[in-house]
């Protein structure tokens, strides 16, 4: 191996030999599956019989597939709400866990640990936490619900509220969470905040890299509290925020384990997500061609959103 100068045949062979696992991997696990998936997306294919070419039919039929449209809208909604929410929440946690404190490492451990647990376990535990009758959450919530309800019921006549409204206020109950179609999506969004530990760790590492001098000179200029956060911390952290944003967008479009175990898409189709419907179409209804078409649409959506994020990065990400 000559360190400088031309690459010899020997160098080339040695390099390719060491890279061989990945080269084979690219061929077997990347190029062939991508090509097959693209081909199947234009076919009627059950995997039990050979694929039959149907042109764009799989793609066109997605437009009139109500379940698909619902899963697309649900996932859009989830992504638009949960990505910024999780980003803000984990940034808040990171700032909180960055304040010098004797128990700081204990708190960091507590926030980080849940993100390592299997999502199936997370789903099973939270389902039981949120159980409307026997779960601790609704047990604890019933008291504030009762107080707020009673208070509102007392003032409601002043606003000429209907008797039925007053009655329902007097019996105000905590939500049924996963069993209520109006609440199930919100519940899944809130639960995804329980697993943000890894994002928090990345933010904390980013906060660590901000030089102390910047804070000192900001202090000399008289900047404190929120202004220091806005003018020093956030700009210096922007590459890390950007990284977490991209990872968050990609992840949100692939959410599967949590809703699959918690709700199976229900009640109705309230929590039917894109990947769940894709799995259902492919492996339960054996519409493999349609599943491949969905996967390509999903890939294109993810690519577009990532491209938009990279475009916007020029405006707000400050690279050192």
């Amino acid at each position: 191996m000559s360190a400088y100068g031309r690459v010899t045949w020997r160098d080339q062979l040695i390099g390719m030999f060491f890279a061989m696992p990945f080269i084979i991997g690219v061929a077997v696990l990347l190029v062939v599956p991508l090509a097959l998936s693209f081909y199947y997306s234009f076919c009627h294919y059950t995997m039990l019989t050979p694929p039959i070419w149907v042109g764009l039919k799989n793609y066109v039929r997605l437009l009139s597939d109500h379940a698909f449209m619902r899963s697309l809208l649900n996932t859009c909604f989830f992504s638009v709400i949960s990505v910024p929410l999780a980003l803000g929440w984990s940034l808040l946690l990171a700032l909180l866990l960055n304040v010098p404190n004797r128990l700081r490492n204990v708190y960091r451990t507590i926030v980080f640990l849940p993100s390592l647990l299997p999502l199936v376990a997370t789903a099973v535990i939270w389902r039981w936490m949120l159980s409307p009758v026997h779960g601790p959450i609704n047990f604890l919530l019933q008291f504030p619900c009762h107080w707020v309800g009673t208070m509102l019921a007392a003032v409601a006549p002043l606003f000429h509220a209907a008797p039925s409204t007053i009655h329902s206020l007097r019996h105000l109950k905590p939500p049924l969470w996963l069993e209520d179609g109006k609440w199930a999506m919100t519940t899944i969004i809130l639960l995804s905040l329980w697993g943000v530990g890894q994002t928090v760790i990345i933010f904390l590492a980013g906060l660590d890299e901000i030089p102390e001098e910047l804070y000192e000179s900001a202090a000399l200029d008289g900047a404190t509290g929120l202004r220091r956060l806005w003018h020093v911390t956030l700009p210096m952290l922007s590459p890390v925020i950007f990284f977490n944003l991209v990872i968050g967008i990609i992840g949100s479009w692939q959410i599967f384990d949590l809703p699959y175990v918690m709700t199976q898409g229900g009640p109705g189709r309230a929590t039917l997500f894109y990947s769940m419907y894709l799995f259902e179409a492919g492996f339960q209804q054996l519409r493999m061609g349609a599943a491949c078409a969905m996967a390509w649409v999903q890939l294109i959506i993810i690519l577009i959103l990532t491209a938009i994020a990279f475009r916007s990065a020029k405006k707000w990400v400050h690279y050192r």
Partner: protein
Amino acid sequence: MKLSGEKPSALLTRRLMIQIALGVVAVIYLAPLFWMLDTSLKTERQAMTQLPSNPARALATLMIPHPLHAANYQKVISSPFFRMQLYARNTLIIALLVAIGSMLSASLVAYALTKLRWYGRNVLFWIVMGSMMLPFSVMMVPLYRIYREFGWIGTNLPLWLPTFLAPPFYVFLLRQFYLTIPNELTEAAVIDGAGPFRIWWYIMVPLTRPALLVVGLFSFVASWNNFIGPLVYLTHQRTYTLALALQFFQTRHGGVAHTLLMAATVLVVLPIIIIFFLAQKTFIRGIATTGIKG
């Protein structure tokens, strides 16, 4: 962080607020784990009982297992529906093979991408970066087809053998680490007449041990937690992994046997929690590296 220009009383209020916020956060993040353990030690009757109307007594019924009922664990381990030992062995075998495969193959490829000079290595690096972004769903159907052709459906082969072909995320992680190792070290070894394979095994592998450990831990945990892979590829109940078996157990008996379900969940997450406490620093360093230098 310096808090200059604040009055002592304001400082005290601030500290108090932060303490309260941290306390609330700790409760939110610990409560589910507590509740899991708590339920797993209750009798089914206590877990499903109608709560008393007196709030204090209701809270006590909710929080304190009475009597302490360890038999749930025995029942789960010997249950014909949840063959804990079998699933644990299945999961462990796959996770260990995944860790070995990822460490070995990603290390070789990262070495080729950073320390060896050959045409195509930059292209290969961009393929590594690009393939990290691909959603599993695009590959799901064609891979199933390919593995079926090999006769692998229903076996654990699709879950670990591909990790011997250098998973891109781990290649990327190790590459970042290889870049920090000075080239002078390999050049000296070349002058001493060492071949590339010996340089990799005797110099690079020992030097990159911390990063290899990160790859081993991450891939082990990812495999332990993997759900959709086993869901797609495993067809017989005796080949199930813990994550898949837990979901199966829940849909079968979740509505009736919460205490058993929680005992099973404790057993599923316990190994991960133990590993985490043994190697907390490695985990945190690994995650920080991917986010900061990425």
